[in-house]
């Protein structure tokens, strides 16, 4: 049985269609990265899965529960880690966890809090108020709060957005531990590296739809081939190189100060400048080609 099953789901906000006929199936035990630019509909999809948004059309099933009618039962079995920090800042670390253990009807609140503290590596800080914690500790606590009832499914909504690289790495380690335990994870992100490192499968979402899905290596192979050539230089040179590559049928995308010519292993002689820097194709190439957005 799939942990999450969405068929033809539509969600509109006035004239804007945030989710546009979305089909998505997440098998149990995998980590699926929902990768898309800002405004792709990822957060709305997450809210639909918790019953905090109601679909205009389509069918949603989460852990065997039909949504939105059985959203409360589904929420009892899933954990949610939000994009924004919504901890109670004046309350202690352990009270933040205990409150949610009660909300999730955990029978032994004390044991659940201890386990969550261990997971977040915050046992020594349990009696400190949240506003005394560092940014990284707060994010770890937020993750532990979503796991305090040992859910079967966890929704991570942009878990590392706005964090510095060190804290991001800390969180990736924690999420990696969850993966190894077999917890089903749906993680929305617009960070390519995050999806590449953590997800068993990646679904690329844009304009409310999944436009491609597969294991990262499969997506790269399917859409970007084996190699990408990056060409650097002044704008006139880049424009000329782009024109030449495209005339040979190659896909070209902007890459900061350079252009990236995708699938360069198949390029004919003269299609790519000799001084181009050749590297292995990446998920970033796929993301930009498919969504037309610059990657982060």
């Amino acid at each position, binding site marked *: 049985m799939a942990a999450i099953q969405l068929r033809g789901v539509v969600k509109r906000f006035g004239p804007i269609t945030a989710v546009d006929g979305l089909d998505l199936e997440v098998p149990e035990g995998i980590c699926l990265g929902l990768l898309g630019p800002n405004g792709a509909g990822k957060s709305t999809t997450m809210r639909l899965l*918790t019953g*905090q948004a109601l679909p205009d059309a389509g069918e949603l099933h989460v852990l065997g529960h039909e949504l939105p009618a059985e959203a*409360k039962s589904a929420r*009892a079995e899933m954990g949610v880690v939000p994009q924004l920090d919504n901890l109670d800042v*004046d309350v202690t670390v352990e009270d933040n966890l205990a*409150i949610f253990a009660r*909300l999730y009807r955990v029978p032994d609140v004390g044991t659940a809090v201890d386990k969550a503290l261990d997971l977040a590596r915050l046992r020594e800080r349990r009696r400190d108020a949240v506003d005394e914690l560092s940014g990284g500790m707060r994010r770890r606590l937020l993750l532990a709060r979503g796991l305090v009832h040992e859910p079967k499914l966890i929704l991570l909504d942009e878990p590392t957005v706005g964090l510095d690289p060190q804290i991001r790495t800390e969180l990736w380690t924690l999420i990696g531990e969850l993966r190894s335990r077999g917890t089903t994870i749906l993680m929305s992100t617009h960070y390519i590296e995050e999806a590449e490192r953590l997800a068993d499968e990646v679904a690329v979402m844009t304009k409310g739809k999944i436009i491609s899905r597969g294991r990262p290596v499969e997506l790269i192979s399917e859409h970007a081939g084996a190699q990408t050539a990056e060409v650097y230089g002044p704008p006139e040179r880049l424009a000329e190189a782009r024109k030449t590559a495209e005339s040979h049928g190659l896909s070209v995308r902007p890459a900061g100060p350079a252009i990236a010519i995708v699938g360069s292993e198949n390029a004919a002689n003269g299609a790519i400048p000799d001084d181009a820097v050749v590297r292995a194709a990446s998920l970033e190439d796929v993301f930009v080609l498919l969504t037309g957005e610059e990657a982060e």
Partner: protein
Amino acid sequence: MRRLEPAAIGGVMSRELANFRTYWKGTTFSSVLEPIVYLLAFGLGLSATLVDEVNGVPYIEFVGTGMVATAVIFSSALPAMFGTFVKHRFQNTYDAILAAPVDVEELVTAEMLWIGLRSGTYGCVPLLVTIAFGLDPAWGMLLVPIFCFVTALGFAGFGVAMAASVAKIDQFNYVTALCITPLFLVAGTFFPIDGLPHGVQVVAQLNPLLQLVELVRGGAFGFEAVDILRFAYLAGFALLTWRIAVSRMHNRLID
């Protein structure tokens, strides 16, 4: 899962309790000090110069019993308005709670119950202060926490509904000026409403705070048969604002 589960309501209230433990001292201090200041200013000040007694009741006791209603509205409607707005818009607290197995009805019910309990307790403080100023204790006063609790539930529902209706926090100024201040002034706290024009007296009967003031004075000086209707009116007010608050919050919190 069924509606209005005690575990969900208790969980949300436990969050309020955990937060309350961090600020209870300040709240308690102001709840005790305010009635003392009011009684000194209005009770002792006015009774020494302008008013000696109202309907046979010493003015300080008249004001002291009336101030229970003041304490209730200011410890229920205002925290419900501002607290709900801040938790929703600035702290994203409700997003976290509604991601757990709690629905909007349980969330609103828990918030109202918490405010009702807190306000029911703090509402009694002016009465205790008035006793310290010379009011004779009476058995009927034991019912005052219940009267305060039910009235506070109603005003908590009103506050939550307002928080779910305004677009910006500044708009609470309109609610305070147009609703709360008139209700507070025409509640029979500082002067009896019998002196007001007949039309105003009729409209004032709709004011839940006036009914609370009459019930508190009933508890202190003797109940009347009509007090049962007054209590029923307060219970109806709480029921009505509860349903409106749930509906408004559902529209606000669920996309």
